């Protein structure tokens, strides 16, 4: 296992950051697999620094009002709505 591979606690921490609940079996499985996969990703160390020569241009459009979804359409897939708004869980 590489020095930087996350242990079970770190896998749980990353899962918390990503807001993905995991059960204990998944934590164990991912800990093993991440060691292999991240070891493999470490071969990127061999890549030389390369100058990027891309010509970058902005492709902004005019900020004009356009046709959009109706409120009804926008809310159609929401599990819960109230008075024309999305209804979500408490923020804190």
């Amino acid at each position, binding site marked *: 296992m590489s020095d930087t591979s996350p242990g079970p606690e770190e896998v749980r921490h990353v*899962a918390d950051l990503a807001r993905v609940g995991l059960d204990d079996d998944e934590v164990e499985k991912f800990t093993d697999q991440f060691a292999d996969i991240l070891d493999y990703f470490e071969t990127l160390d061999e890549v030389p620094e390369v100058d990027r020569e891309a010509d970058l241009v902005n492709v902004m459009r005019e900020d004009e009002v356009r046709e959009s979804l109706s409120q009804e359409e926008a809310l159609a897939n929401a599990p819960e709505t109230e008075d024309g708004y999305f209804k979500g869980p408490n923020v804190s």
Partner: protein
Amino acid sequence: MSADHNIFVTEETVEGAADGPLADSTVAVKDNISTEGVRTTCGSEMLDDYVPPYDATVVEKLTEAGATIVGKANMDEFGMGSTTETSAFGPAENPAAPGRVPGGSSGGSAAAVAAGEADLALGSDTGGSIRNPAAFCGVVGIKPTYGLVSRYGLVAYANSLEQIGPLAPTVEEAAALLDVISGPDERDATTRDEGADSDYASAATGDVDGTTVGVPTELVEGADEGVRGRFEAALDDLESQGATVEEVSLPSVEHAVEAYYVIAMSEASSNLARFDGVRYGHSGGFDGNWNEAFSKAREEAFGEEVKRRILLGTYALSAGYHDKYYKQAQDARAWVKQDFDEAFESVDVLASPTMPTPPFEVGESLDDPLQMYLADANTVPANLADLPAISVPAGEVDGGPVGVQFVGPAFGEEEIIRVGSAVEQ
């Protein structure tokens, strides 16, 4: 019957305009491409009952061209997989090799064409997801140059890499479908003008006299013996038609797979953050606070491969690791582009086996994600370099169909279509 192969997640007919270039054609659409009023699941429980209120640009173009859409094709969940086994709706089967996977992630789309359930299909290709199932199912698939086809209405997995593209029984039919869907779109600022008045279909002339085909040794060495045999036979055939074949070296491709997965997972971790079960998608219920409800919805409704990629992407972008993984992956991407640019100074197209093996057996790759990732070695370089690539059937070996891949310079679709059509003759 499609039920035999589990090709469609939703079978629903959408009639197109009365006439147009696709008036006599039926098309299967990958289930991550939005269709107004027709359920679009991305192969995920998360979007089990999601019904988009609008059409993707490519879907508008299909119906304007007269095509009849016959269903939403099965796929790896959110495009994450190489076998169509990670679908929440069960794996699709390969009609051309029973007991084998159809490849992924556009496995349902390729299987629909191979089984005759649709004349044509649309897939999406982030790291090979059109070309891999095209090769495994014995059909033609094209991954267009980045920016040729609008991604408006494609449910995003890794924006900087993915393109929608055609699958068809022949190169000419795939090219004709590409003619319909390509071109600029004011709703996707990454589209370019090159495909606006295209006539790719008439490029399928089969004429390769005087064409130089480069073969990157790095992309042939790892292939199975049987696959190599079919690949070399295809090259011999092109030489007999007047093409010149020469070896080239692309040292950067040795790092393409790890660069691809770091970038794709990083983009996925950001893109899939929108699935919180509040505005659409599976809800975890509203017990507890936002973070708890959000985590619960995602625990319940995302499959294992999706969780794996979100977590690895989150990790690769996190403080302290960003330079180690993401920045180096971007360097590798620039190196791959540079290598391809140099190669195209001396050759017209690059050729390799599409997949290093014949179709995998069902279940073979699921327990070892790293092994599955490594199978994409030949397809991911084109996505990293934003280049067009085609997979054309090159016969069968024990285990099923084999595909040969041609990669062209940016917006060189006509070139790869011309060379691809010569393999068919």
